[in-house]
Structures are given as C-alpha cells and as structure tokens.
C-alpha cells in the first residue's frame, strides 16, 4: 500500500491548452482521496530536469511512498519518471485523454470528467499497490542436457565454458547420436564448398575430459519433478538436483511407410539417405541386391508423391485442454488411466526436412563421385539450399558427373538386373523423361523425438509433455519468431533438430543459445525474478488458500503449467515456473489470487472510480476498456500520434494480459452502471500473438461464463465484447471503439443497473 502520494499534473504537450490543469489539481486537493495525497502540483513541463527535481525534492521532504504522474503514456519518459524505491503510477493524460478526445457538443465538461476519472483511478490504483518482495530460494545451478548427440555435446561444452556444472544424459551406450553414423558432413564453415569431417571424436573427447560435465550414458530421464532452480530429475532411478534443462534429444528417421509411393520396401535398390550414409561410413556403397558398387545413383528430392494425404489447410488442433484422466478418478472406483501421447509424425516431415535432404543429397552425390566413373543424379522440385550453401550447390553443378534437374517424379519401377527406371515430368531435360539408375536414394525425414513421446516426463499437473506440439508437428519449437526459445514450459530450452530441422552448424549455434537461456533461467530463479517476457519482475502470484474451493480452474488454465495440485485439488504454486501473466488471477472465481502490485482489489477499485452519470441522456454512457499492455495499449497510443480520436465516454485501463481479467471486474463495472466493457487483446488461434500464449484465448472462453452471469442479472451479454487487436492496428482500433459504442451502447441503451 502506498499511502503518502504526490500527484503531479503536467500541462505540456498541449495538455493545458485543452484541459484546466489547475482545476484538476484543485479537484484532487479537495477530492475524496485528499488524505492520501499530501502533495498535489501542476507543472508546465513535468518531464524537464526541473520537473523531475521537484518530484525528487518532494519525495525527500514529504517522505512520499508513491508518485502519480499525470502526463504522457507510460511507454515514454520511463527513464525520467523513475524514483528508486518510490512506487510510480502513470496517468496517460496526453495520448489517451487530451490528444484523442473527441467532444460531444451536446454535453458539457466531458474532457474534465474524463481527466478526473483517470486521475482518481491512478491514485487508487497506486494506493492499493505494494512493492513486491521476491521469494528467493536456494537454487541448483546444474544444467541437465538431454541427449548426447552433436547438439547436446555442444550444449554441454557451452554451459561448462560459461562456468556451470552439467549433467549430460544420453539414452544410448555411447555419445554421438546420429553423427556417429555419418561418413562426412556437408560444409559447415567458410568457404562452404567442400565436405568436412564431423569432428565428432574431438567433441566427445572434449566432453569426456571436462571436469564440469558428468556424463550418464544408457540413461533416460524418467521424471522431472519440481520447478526451475529446484528440479529433481529421476535418471535411471537416481535423483539429481537440477536447475534447468536443455532438450537436445534430436530426431529419428521418418517412418519408411511414407516412402512406399516411390518403391521403398518394394524394390531392393531403393534406399534412404540414412541407409546410404551408413553404407558410406561402413565399408562403402553397395547395391543391396548384389553388393556391387553402383555406377549410377539417383537422389530424389521431389516429395510430391509422398504428400498426397497432406492437407495444410486443416487447423492444427488446440482444443480446450481436457481434464486429465486422473481427475475423473471418483471415489477410487476406476483405475487411473495411463497418459496416452498422440504420435505427431506425418508425411509433412518429409517436406519440412527439405533443406537437410537437399544438402545430404548433394553430399552423397559427392560420395558417389569418389568413384570417378560413377554418375549421380539429383532430382528436385526446388533445390533447397538457402544462404551460403548455394556455394556447395555450385560445386555440384560444376561436376560433370553430377546431373541435377528440376523434376516431378511420376513413378519408379524396377528394370533388368535390379536397376531402376525413374519416370519424371517437367524436367530441364525434357517434358517427360525416363532415367535408368543402379540405385535410388529417397530422402530421410527428420522427425523430432518429441513427435513420438513426451520425452520431458514432467511431473506436472498438466501432464508429462510440452503442450500444443501439434502446432509444430511435434517439434519442441516456439511459436514466436522473435523469441525462438520461449515455450510453455519455463526452464526447458530446446536446441537442434528436436526444435527444427537444421544443419549442424546452426545446431551448434542453437546449442549455445539454449545454453544461455538455461543459465539465465537458473540465475533469475535464484534472484526470485521472472524470465521472459516480464524479465526481472519481482512480483509473483500470492494465494489466499483459506477461501480456495479447489475448483482447479487456475491449475488447468495456467499457460505454463506453473500450478500443481494436492490430492484435494488445492493449487500448489511453483513461482519459478511462473511468467507473471496473471492468468490464474483471472481464472479464480473466489478471487484468492493476486500480486502485490497487480491484484483484484486494485483493479476493481480503480474501475469503481469511474463516475457514471445516473442519466445516460444527460451525462452520456460510460464504457470501460481493458487493454493488453503489450499490444492493444501501445496501439491506442499510436492512434493518438496518428491523430485519431475516440468516444469521450470510454476509460482505458491497461492489463498485464487479457488472461488476467477476472470476471469480478466486469461485474464491478456493471454494478456501477457502466454500459459496456471492451476487452482488447491479442490475436489467438494457431498463430497466436499473445505473449502469454493462451491469455487472450482463455479470456474469450471465459467471456461465455460472464455472458451467462450477465443474462441472469438481466443485462445484455453483448455489453461485454472482446476484440483482437494487433499492435499495428492503430488505424483500426478507433473504429472498433466506435462500433462498440454504436452497436452496443446505442442499441441497448443504458445499463439497467444505472443509478442503483
């Protein structure tokens, strides 16, 4: 609680031209919160060094524990209005009040009423806010690397080089993973023109001789219990204290059934690149049918024939999470069902592996050409060698013994003596061609291990696997372009081919990136602060368990699986898994969850500061906008810079995420006589833009419950609407407000609770 507040009202940037700032100051001095506000001042340019100095002097002289800055948006001048331990709340008079004000000529003092509401809201909001004291627990700084292949080995070394201890867990008896079967690698370094050694032996030796790395082979992670900084990992029955995890379990070759359309399994001399590689590594390339060295080998990159059943237009999935089987275990009558993990492999993985397939085909064509009399063909639809690997492709083009052509493969048939006849159309060699080859090599799909099994074996209430991997066809990937390591499980960072199909040089880089995130997570946990996207946030949700009814909504809805539950269903928080979005706070019907500096009472009290005229015809309607602070709120600010304006009857309040919106805020607003509530949040669906993954989607789902309660009260449910707003929709958002005002407020008239 901040109880000695300084309220400062800026007149700059045209605020004082439209608004009576002195009158506003008088209003605060004599208003209902005067006892909270020993200092109330105006300043013509509050952000000037002189303005800042004045605030600092008042903090010192008056012992203020909070400052309400009524000036511009919190998005700007953040560095000026920062006063150490003294809490600050920003009242956005400039962008979202004065600059965007559009008058209603029939009414009086609308701008004054708006500014007064905002200032009162700002005072009460700050008054109810406390400085969070982070919960600090002693953390393990050991990083567990899952998977001892090329990526995992690199990750282990990177972590060790940064000075942290590592446990490297490999399921096979030996380290090395898929690279152990590799004869050579395609180019990994400048000049990107020649085959290279994988360097695996050196890598394994470096790992084995590193004091900081403990290697566990023939080992699997049976269970990961706890939370970042305090995990207990059960590995082959042994309990290990772990801080964070790098997931580098790599890939498996795709199921060969998808290759059947081009004769795999039917013709002996049709093999996969994976099989071909092993031959090259172990004694040379021989035809399976007669063990002779082939004189002509055709590599097929066109995957069209394998893709007949693929329909990308079908939406991935992401239905609301269903109850776990164990929740239905009533009275112990039924046995708990075993968790079933749906396999996510499909023919799509062949298409997704196109870059690796192309590089491998070019590499293996070079193996073929180690016999100067042998000939290699490479048939592609698009030669997928983006970036500097173009140079490697050029080398192949310059080799007269490598024939490369665009082609659509129509069929592969067996000819005489085990040879194969490849029929193709639309080639650079002619419209319809037939090529005879001793062997045909089909691509190997990179299928992430996580497509087949949960792998992480989280001992979490929400289950053992990463949620929503359907979106990425089983890859343990991020949905964010900007933040490739952010998933729905804090403390686990994926790298290498389990995350995306990628060549070894990028996997090396990826290993270092995941290593950084793992170390950073442990250090953040150790300091009691949040990781991305609210990095450094010291607040965390606090539960008042006395009133908890064990409804389980919070434990089900947390996008990050931060809440476990005891046998009764009481939530068991894990602060280091938490990202501080407040989705649990929004979910709770009993309002038992809140943050020191962001809670139910604080927002509800701020909403209640809005003065709603008893008579809508005289004073106009009132609408509350709850806006996502990451996207919708900046979009509103930008609308101001673009010269837009909107209804003088709306009041905007930023929220951490729409997921944090509790139904009680809507009820508070409605019971005050507010005529409508607009919820402005991020896009949801498969390509969600919500930085807390599920927040805006959950809010939308909860809206149905809100609608029901409103119906019961006799209030039209349409008075509460959610809109999806991207940050660049600054030109559209004023129109959305306009629509809401006409469709809802004008159509339904005043809230029936008005005046009560």
């Amino acid at each position, binding site marked *: 609680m901040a109880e000695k507040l300084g309220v400062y009202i800026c007149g*700059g940037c*045209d605020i004082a031209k439209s608004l009576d700032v002195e009158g506003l100051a008088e209003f605060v001095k004599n208003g209902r919160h005067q006892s909270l506000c020993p200092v109330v001042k105006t300043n013509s340019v509050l952000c*000037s*060094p002189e303005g800042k100095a004045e605030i600092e002097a008042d903090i010192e002289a008056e012992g203020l524990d909070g400052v309400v800055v009524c000036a*511009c948006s919190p998005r*700007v001048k953040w560095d000026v209005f920062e006063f150490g331990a003294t809490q600050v709340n920003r009242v956005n008079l400039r962008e979202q009040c004065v600059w965007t004000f559009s008058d209603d000529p029939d009414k009086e003092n609308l701008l004054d009423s708006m500014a007064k509401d905002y200032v009162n809201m700002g005072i009460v909001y700050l008054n109810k806010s406390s400085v969070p004291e982070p919960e600090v627990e002693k953390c393990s700084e050991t990083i567990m690397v899952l998977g001892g292949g090329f990526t995992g080995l690199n990750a282990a070394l*990177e972590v060790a*080089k*940064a*000075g942290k201890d590592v446990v490297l867990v490999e399921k096979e008896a030996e380290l090395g993973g898929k690279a152990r079967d590799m004869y050579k690698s395609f180019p990994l370094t*400048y000049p990107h023109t020649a085959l290279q050694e994988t360097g695996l032996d050196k890598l394994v030796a470096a790992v084995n001789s590193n004091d900081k790395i403990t290697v566990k082979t023939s080992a699997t992670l049976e269970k990961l219990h706890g939370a970042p900084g305090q995990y207990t990992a059960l590995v082959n029955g042994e309990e290990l204290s772990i801080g964070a995890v790098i997931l580098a379990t790599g890939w498996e070759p795709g199921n060969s059934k998808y290759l059947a359309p081009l004769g795999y399994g039917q013709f002996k001399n049709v093999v996969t690149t994976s099989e071909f590689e092993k031959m090259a590594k172990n004694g040379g390339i021989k035809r399976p049918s007669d063990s002779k060295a082939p004189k002509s080998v055709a590599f097929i990159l066109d995957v069209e024939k394998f893709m007949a059943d*693929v329909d990308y*237009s079908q939406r991935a999935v992401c239905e609301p999470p269903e109850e776990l089987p164990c929740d239905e275990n009533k009275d112990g009558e039924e046995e708990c069902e075993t968790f079933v993990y749906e396999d996510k492999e499909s023919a*799509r993985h062949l*298409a*997704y592996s*196109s*870059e690796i397939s192309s590089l491998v085909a070019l590499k293996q064509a070079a193996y073929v050409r180690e016999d100067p009399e042998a000939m290699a063909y490479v048939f592609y639809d*698009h*030669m997928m060698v*983006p*970036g*500097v*690997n*173009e*140079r490697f492709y050029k080398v192949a083009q310059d080799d007269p013994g490598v024939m490369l052509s*665009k082609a659509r493969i129509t069929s592969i048939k067996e000819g005489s003596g085990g040879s194969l006849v490849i029929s193709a159309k639309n080639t*650079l060699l002619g419209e319809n061609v037939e090529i005879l080859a001793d062997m045909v090599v089909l691509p190997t799909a990179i299928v992430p291990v996580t497509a087949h099994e949960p792998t992480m074996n989280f001992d979490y209430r929400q289950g053992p696997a990463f949620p929503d991997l359907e979106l*990425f*066809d089983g*890859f343990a990937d991020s*949905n964010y*372009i*900007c*933040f*490739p*390591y952010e998933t729905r499980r804090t403390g686990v960072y994926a790298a290498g081919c389990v995350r*995306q199909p990628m060549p070894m040089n*990028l996997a090396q*880089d*990826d290993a*270092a990136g995941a*290593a*950084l*995130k793992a170390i950073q997570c442990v*250090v*953040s946990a150790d300091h009691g602060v949040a990781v991305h*996207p609210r*990095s*450094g946030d010291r607040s965390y949700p606090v539960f008042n368990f006395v009133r908890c009814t064990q409804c389980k909504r919070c434990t089900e809805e947390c996008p990050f699986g931060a809440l476990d539950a005891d046998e009764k269903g009481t939530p068991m928080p894990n602060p280091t898994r938490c990202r501080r979005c407040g989705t649990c706070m929004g979910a709770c019907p009993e309002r038992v969850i809140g943050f020191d500096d962001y809670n139910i009472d604080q927002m509800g009290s701020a909403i209640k500061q809005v003065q709603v005229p008893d008579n809508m015809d005289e004073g106009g309607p009132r609408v509350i906008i709850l806006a996502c602070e*990451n*996207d919708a709120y*900046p979009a509103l600010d930008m609308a101001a810079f*673009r010269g837009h304006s909107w209804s003088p009857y709306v009041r905007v309040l930023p929220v951490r995420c729409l997921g944090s919106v509790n139904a009680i805020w809507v009820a508070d607003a409605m019971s005050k006589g507010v005529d409508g509530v607009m919820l402005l949040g991020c*896009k949801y669906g498969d*390509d969600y*833009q919500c930085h807390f993954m599920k927040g805006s989607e959950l809010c939308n789902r909860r809206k149905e419950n809100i609608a029901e309660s409103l119906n019961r009260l006799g209030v039209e449910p349409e008075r509460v609407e959610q809109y999806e707003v*991207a940050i*660049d*929709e600054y030109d559209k958002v004023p129109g959305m407000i306009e629509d809401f005002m006409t469709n809802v407020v004008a159509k339904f008239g005043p809230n029936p609770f008005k005046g009560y």
Partner: protein
Amino acid sequence: MSNNSILVVGGGFAGITAALEAAELGYEVFIVEKNPYLGGRVAQLNQYFPKLCPPSCGLEIQFQRIKKNPKVKYFTLSQVDAVSGGPGNYSVKVTKQPRHVNSRCTCCGECAKAARTEVDSEFDFETGKRKAAYTTHLFAFPARYTIDPTTCDKIELERIKDACPYDAIDLDEQPKTFDLNVGSIVWATGWKPYPLEKLTNLGAGKVANVISNMQMERLASPSGPTNGRIVRPSDGAEPKRIAFVQCAGSRDENHLNYCSYICCMASLKHVRYLRERYPEAKIVIYYIDLRTPGRYDKFKALTVDDPNLSLVKGKVAAVAEDAGKNPILTVENAVTGIKNDEQFDLVVLATGMQPSAAGEKLPAGLPVDEEGFIIGGEDKGIVAAGCAKLPLDVMKTAQSGTSAALKAIQNVVGR
C-alpha cells in the same frame, strides 16, 4: 584491468537480442547503433513470415526489456571507429553524430510542423518524404525527434528551433568521440539491401513501377508513406498484374555469390499482402528455386494454392517499360525454353541482402569473406551475430543473437 562488460555493435534484432540476453544474466551492456533508432531492418518490415504478425510487437517487448533493465545502455547515431586491446580489456573509440535534439524532447511534433522542406525518406527507401525534423517511423525508439540540418536552409532551421516549446533543439551540437572499456564484443551490424543501381539488366532502379522488396514493405506498412496502400509509384494506381523477380542480385557471381535466404519467403508473404488488398489481381513469380526451408513449406503450400498466382521457373533477362510506364519483363521459361515479353502494372525485385560491412574495413581486423560476411574473430574475443555472419531469417537471427550473448559472456567469465 579486466572488465566484464559487453559491447554490442549494431542495434538491430540480433544486437538487441544479444544485449538483452546478456544483461538479463547480470552483465553491463552497451549497444552502439548508427541509426537514430533501435530495431534495425525489422523496424522497416510490415509483417513477418510465416505468422504475418507485426515486428513492432516483438520490438515492443524488447524495448520494454531495455526500459526495465538499467544494465543496458545504448547510443544511437553512433559508430565504432577503432578497437584496441584484447579479450577482457578492450578500448573502443565511438563517435556519436549530433541528433540536434536533446532529452528534453517530448515527441510533441511542433518541430516537424514548423518544417517545410521535404526530401526522400531513407527509412522508406525513397517511397516517401521526410522533413528536416523527423522521426523515422511511428514506433521509433527512442521516441525522440532527429534534426538533419542538411535538409533545409538556416532560416528554416531557426524556425524549427523556435517552434520547440521545450528548448530541446541544439543546432550547434557537434559530433562527440568517447571511449568505452569492455571485456567482450558482439558484432551485429546486419545487412543492407543490394543496391538496385547495380542491377542494370533489371532497370537499375530507374523504372518507375519496378520496386524492391523492401520498398514493398514500406508501402504495405499501415503507417508507411501510403498508409498501407500498395500502389504504383508513378501514378498511385492500384496494380492488377504484378510480377516478382526472384534472385535479383542473389545467386549470381557478378553480384552476390550466395542465396539471400529470405527473399522467396518474403515474396510469398508479399503475395499475401496483395491478396488481402486485391483478391483478383494476377500475380506471377519468376524464380530459380523457391526456397522455403523447414516448416515454411506449409506457408508456401497455402500461399501458392491460389488460381491467380503463377509460378514460373525462369530467369528475367531484361526489364523495360512502355509509354504507359508499365514494366515489360523479358523472361525465359527454364522448363519450356520459351522466351517472351510480359507486361505488368507493378514489378517487385526480390533484392538480396548484403552484409552491411561489405566493402568496409572492420576495426580490430575481423576476418571477412569475399562478400563481407564475418568468418571468425572468436579467437580475438569478438563474436559475430545475425546477418553480419550469414544470411538468415529473423527467427534464426534471434537464435544467433542469443548464442552470441553466451559466447560474449564466456569471454569475460572468471576474468
């Protein structure tokens, strides 16, 4: 004296990422950025592929992280002149060009209202205009005006200065040089679009209705020069037939001896921009290979499932224009071998990315390849990140920046 702070050269996506990831591990970080804003190339993009989400969204999060973290310090309009010393103890000479606007600026815009003279906007690749007092774009960070005194005469400059209510303009500000002492350096200077002038067979940037892919981004941006309308530069007309010329400069030993990684996906994204605005427009993409690696295959498949889009494997040999300023492409179809001329309303050249450092000598003797990509330096304690090292997309750039942060930390840890 050893030092464990980190210098990040370049404030684009790779640089910002590297800086933040290191700072959130507790290291002091300095970003040196030559533009008046942070965000680099992605700030100029309308949307990212494949999600079609706005880059300003991710940048907003990054800037919030910067605002909340006192360990991150940044210098705009600044460049590194010289680096001396070695890992753990570098001395770096930085020159900061005058912005002529100090921290009193509130972004109220009075200076821009007082300015009259307009010149081509560099940020918009000459598709729009700016004044002597300007912000490059709506989301510019830091939110502060810049004055370019070369834009107009002294009288106008004085008028601009007088218009500022906050005494924020200093027309006499001079360049400043200062030293930074750091233990480790991340080099993330990014890329520049390959110059159209060099593509003589593709019109050399002189054909009015032939634009580059980056110009397309500015036209599509809702706060860009056309408020998001994709129209012909010559007459503002809505195009009905649009062609994309892939590999404009890339995969060509006479220009860029590599594939620029992003242009195929960028053009497919531009098809989506066009489809949203012009559902009936006829679009042709001339390509050598459509390079849509990894899971991008899905975006490609959904985009090309479009009866009004044709994909032609073929090389564009020449660009001309007719009397109506309609571009004429001379194309040879690689599969059929047929060569003919096609008329369009608008042509987009998918110009490649060139490392910003191409043709420049880098401080501290960082090794570069023939094209200007950095190919080493880690032995010197300098880590290259993002497109300064390899042509990459944004996701891989973020990955690279994160990785560079760790390597920079490894250089200073335990010193």
